[in-house]
């Protein structure tokens, strides 16, 4: 098993953070994992992205030509990465910001109002964590509990005050994706 996920959105949306949470969760699950950011000069408001490869065997190529899943949190990300999803792959959309629907028909598409849910959870910046929750609802790369554990492990020592909100965001995304639909709200 060798699954690659791309998280993409604005630089401010905590994209890299969500990716590292997934990576950490996979690690604690005893899986192999590789996290790599798009480290090119990113304009703060521009598109930031990272790729997380989760596997049950040593990981070869750190670069994926086709991703099994893409979490796109803003319109530019969708434009940039829609074509990167492997046929039959998963595409998680942030319905709060993305109106236009993807053109591809060979994908499993989940449109979740990530920004709204994040705001409800307490902070727009949690949008990526919502996206992570949504991803895990459709692709159990790691148990949702492992993701929770990773959030705790990281935030408890660094920023305990925001842990609760992050956990809430994770759940919200997870829940939304379970009954998430293709129709734009």
């Amino acid at each position, binding site marked *: 098993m060798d699954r690659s996920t791309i998280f993409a959105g604005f630089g401010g949306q905590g994209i890299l*953070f969500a990716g590292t949470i997934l*990576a950490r969760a996979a690690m604690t699950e005893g899986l192999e994992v590789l996290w790599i*950011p798009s480290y*090119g*000069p990113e304009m*703060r408001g521009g598109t930031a992205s990272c790729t997380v490869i989760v596997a049950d065997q040593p990981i070869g*190529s750190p670069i994926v030509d086709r991703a099994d899943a893409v979490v796109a949190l803003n319109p530019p990300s969708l434009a940039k990465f829609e074509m990167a999803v492997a046929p039959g792959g998963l595409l998680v959309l942030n319905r709060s910001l993305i109106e236009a629907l993807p053109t591809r028909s060979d994908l499993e598409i989940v449109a979740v109002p990530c920004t709204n849910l994040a705001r409800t959870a307490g902070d727009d910046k949690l949008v990526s964590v919502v996206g992570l929750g949504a991803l895990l609802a459709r692709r159990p790369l790691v148990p949702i509990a492992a993701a929770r554990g990773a959030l705790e492990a990281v935030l408890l020592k660094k920023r305990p005050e925001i842990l609760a909100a992050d956990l809430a965001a994770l759940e919200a995304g997870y829940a939304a994706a379970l009954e998430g639909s293709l129709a734009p709200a």
Partner: protein
Amino acid sequence: MAIDVQSATGLAEAAMPSEATALPERVLMKGNEAIAEAAIQAGCDAYFGYPITPQAEILEWMARRMPEVGRVFVQAESELAAINMALGAAATGARVLVSSSSPGISLMAEGMSYMAGSEVPVVLVDIMRGGPGLGSIGPSQSDYFQIVKGHGHGDYRTPVLAPASIAEAIELVADAFELAERYRTPVVILADGTLGQAMEPVVPAYRLPPRQDFDWAANGAAGRRPRVVRSLHLKPEDLEAHNEHLQAKYRAIEAAEVRWTGELLDDAELVIVAYGTAARVARTAIRRAREGGLRAGLFRPISLWPFPTAPLAAVANRVRGILTVELSSGQMVEDVRLAVEGRTPVAFHGRTGGMVPSPDEVLASLRRLWAVTDPVDGERRRPRRSARWVPPQHPQHPPRLVEEESDVREPALQEVWR
């Protein structure tokens, strides 16, 4: 347009020694940070550097950690200054790390030549990016010629170690300090941007190489004759003697310090020679090849100088062909051909400018190579020479996201390398 890696850097703090040096438990580490921490754990006394992507995290890690452990961190005014600060510190016997990336490394050519000439041990980390010139900040292996062959002026060699994983990088950093001090020479850790930027779970195998006291270090002439650390030998007779001494040392390194690993070589018909990130891509391609019935194997040089010439020559004698894969337009492949020296065809597949070949792309080249070579024992129809490319040249702007297969041109082994 700040490069947005702060959050990642922040997270990797989780891998601070407190935790890292605890039970052999896996921690998530960013390549650059793992290299920096490995140096600290290896007893690095001083770090000198200058910011450049994609290795800025080494500098930043050192900026925080070195003062914490009471050691020296200096952000120099330039790479030129950094390498010469390193020369000064190491000339007194200190254990010194310097890091940069391609354009910055170019500015260190003179300093490296001086350190080789005055036999000063320093470890230099080069996290390569795409060139030439300002190029891009994408991952690349296009500085092989520079680091392994040319760079500074004069007859000198520098041991070069090329990790293919973060865990291996951690081990090689300690080894590099040991080599540097044992042979009184600068040593280079050569990796590309992906290794520097990626995070992997590792069980950090830190190591503190034993300290020796040096009979050459300029650390104050208390109770002994003064010492001079220098590379000037104005009389040609003297400089030739010095060069012969250096060459003898290099022969000794070539005899003792060759490092490489092989995978699936025993029954391999075709062998991929690749290092660093290219070797990881090759590994995936080889797995897919074997799934398709093509018996491929991997020969991965770890020491680029000394290059594993003899082992590769031995492998070359029994295989149908060799494919060299690099993130460049073909540099290490010259050392491969020098080792193979006509024993078997050598082909090349490379991507440049920050692009990384996809496993399928490499697989396609393997298949082509198989198609145009002869069974090992069979009588050879074609000259056992090297071809520049399989395919001869890469299509312009290869679409990264579609099947590469179709784009592959006809092989051209008849086009002899020139």
